[in-house]
């Protein structure tokens, strides 16, 4: 990652409440183009909520979020424009069960980007080859394993040719033997220069791919640093405690 790359996500003092529950307490974070960021922390720390504010699946109530030069407000056109630049991969895949793998991937490119069916399908096949399952194109999601479904979900997000990819615990719902196949795809994507925000507890992936790691606890950004700094010299007590609990 070049150090002079432009800042593609700028979050200033982001607050979020669920009713009266204060879940994000003033997050300041800047992400540069091409950066791979791993966000980790205990459950309930607000890390998933935070990355969901970036494509406005959750609305923030104070502070500013600027994505690719556009500020996130209630302006619906802005939201659609930003969402089509951001790919998102969910913990529970969320593939559309009534559509085939191919239709899952081509739906948004054809209706949001207005590509022809041939173009969309060609790109979909390239992406399926990239995630290693070109032979599954005409099956329905329920016919695939969890790992294959998550790879389709990644291909579906990439088909929109996004500038940023968000991963919300992409391997947490997978059987252990399928985690690696998804991480391999993510690793390859990280090396290709994609800007990535990954909420994950896969510390092996963080060590191998992350440019920076961010520790969340209690709705606050507690600590950030390179994987080397975080793993060998965590500064904060809570970071040390959390790392000691998950690295065994």
């Amino acid at each position, binding site marked *: 990652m070049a150090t002079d790359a432009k800042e593609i996500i700028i979050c200033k003092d982001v607050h979020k409440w669920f009713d009266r529950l204060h879940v994000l307490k003033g997050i300041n974070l800047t992400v540069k183009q091409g950066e791979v960021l791993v966000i980790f922390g205990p459950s309930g720390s607000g890390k998933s909520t935070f990355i969901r504010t970036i*494509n406005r*699946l959750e609305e923030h109530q104070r502070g500013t979020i600027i994505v690719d030069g556009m500020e996130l407000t209630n302006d*619906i056109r802005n939201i*659609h*424009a930003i*969402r*089509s630049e*951001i*790919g*998102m991969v*969910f913990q*529970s895949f*969320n*593939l*559309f*069960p*009534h559509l085939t793998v191919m239709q899952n991937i081509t*739906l*948004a490119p054809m*209706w*949001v980007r207005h590509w022809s069916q041939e173009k969309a399908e060609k790109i979909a096949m390239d992406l399926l080859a990239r995630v290693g399952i070109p032979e599954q194109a005409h099956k*329905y*999601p*329920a*016919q695939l394993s969890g790992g294959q479904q998550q790879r389709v*979900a990644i291909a*579906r*997000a990439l088909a*929109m040719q996004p500038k940023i990819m968000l991963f919300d615990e992409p391997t947490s719902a997978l059987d252990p033997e399928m985690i690696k196949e998804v991480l391999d795809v993510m690793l390859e994507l990280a090396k290709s220069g994609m800007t990535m925000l990954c909420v994950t507890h896969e510390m092996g992936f963080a060590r191998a791919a992350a440019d920076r790691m961010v520790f969340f606890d209690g709705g606050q950004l507690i600590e950030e640093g390179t994987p080397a700094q975080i793993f060998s010299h965590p500064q904060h007590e809570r970071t040390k405690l959390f790392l000691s609990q998950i690295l065994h």
Partner: protein
Amino acid sequence: MTASADTLGPPRTSVGVLGWLKKNLFSTWYNTLLTFVTLWFLWVVGSGLISWSLTSARWDVIAANWRLFMVGPFPPDQVWRVWVVVLFVSALFGVSGGVWGGTVRTFTMSLAGGYATLAVIALFVFPVSENLVWLLANLVIVLAAYFLARGRKGLQLWLVGAWLLGFILTILLLQGFVGSTWLPEVSTTQWGGLLLTFMLAIVSIVVSFPLGVLLALGRRSKMPAVKVFSILYIELVRGVPLVTILYMTQIMLPLFLPGELRIDNVLRAIAGMTMFTAAYMAENVRGGLQAIPTGQIEAAQALGLNNALVTLFIVLPQALRMVIPAIVGLFIALFKDTTLATIVALLELLGVARSVLAQPEYLGLQTEVYIFVAAVFFLFSYAMSFASYRLEEALGVGKR
């Protein structure tokens, strides 16, 4: 030589007819006893019914009034128009069965079987009549269309268009034109019997379905005016019996409209049934909408799809698929509820049955006439139910 465990077949008594009999009918002494008691009961009831229907029942009442049952007071010299419509539907069914195959083919073949059966019956009941000729023509055209169209997938889109066009042509052909010599007007007050039952049911179903979907979406809308209107409409209409709505549209609607504007009787009944069914449809569809996981909607939004596209491509297809059984149940109920049109003086199938029974020579033949009417309703209701099961299978409901 012993077979290894993974090639061992199931025990002989657990498969096949014998296995089934043993397992289900004669598994214990009291099950055996129950089986025999049930068989005896079926015999006593069934034999009585069969011997009555073969010996003392006067089925000639059905044959003598056949035209009335089918088309009611439709002018006899114009009945050929109805036959042309049937012929057209037969051809469409034939082509559809050939193009789509599967369940549609089952229906096409059932239709051909129905024509053949009716033709045989007609041969005995009315030896020389044009009915027989028309039936045979239908049989020929349904089979010919099927074999000609078999496997031509390219016709699918044309076929959907032809069905829609056929619907409009049917109405034009049956209604005719004022002052025309070839196609003199047959006003809807002269439509009756099974023809009218079908018209009431099909038009109400076709119109109430999109209305119901819109109302269901409206009820979940974020726009207050749309939401309040949808809730008011649904709750008001659901709170009133269908009979009341039919009376309202028949008797009260003309009071509100200017005198020179007279809406057709049949159209008013259709409007009432459509209004009523749309409200129930809306609630069924809403049930399906609520069952869609939020993750589906979020995934679609995250791809940049706007709300209309999310609803059209992600929410509605899944929601409707889930509520097929409820929707078809509603359509079957509507089909049977068309009989309520008799109370607003429309002569649909049940209305014809009652007018036939009022003729002095057929007094006391309620059993025969009502069994016939019930059989007709059952036949078509069951066909709808069967189609819905097959549709669920084809769409993989509950499997993916």
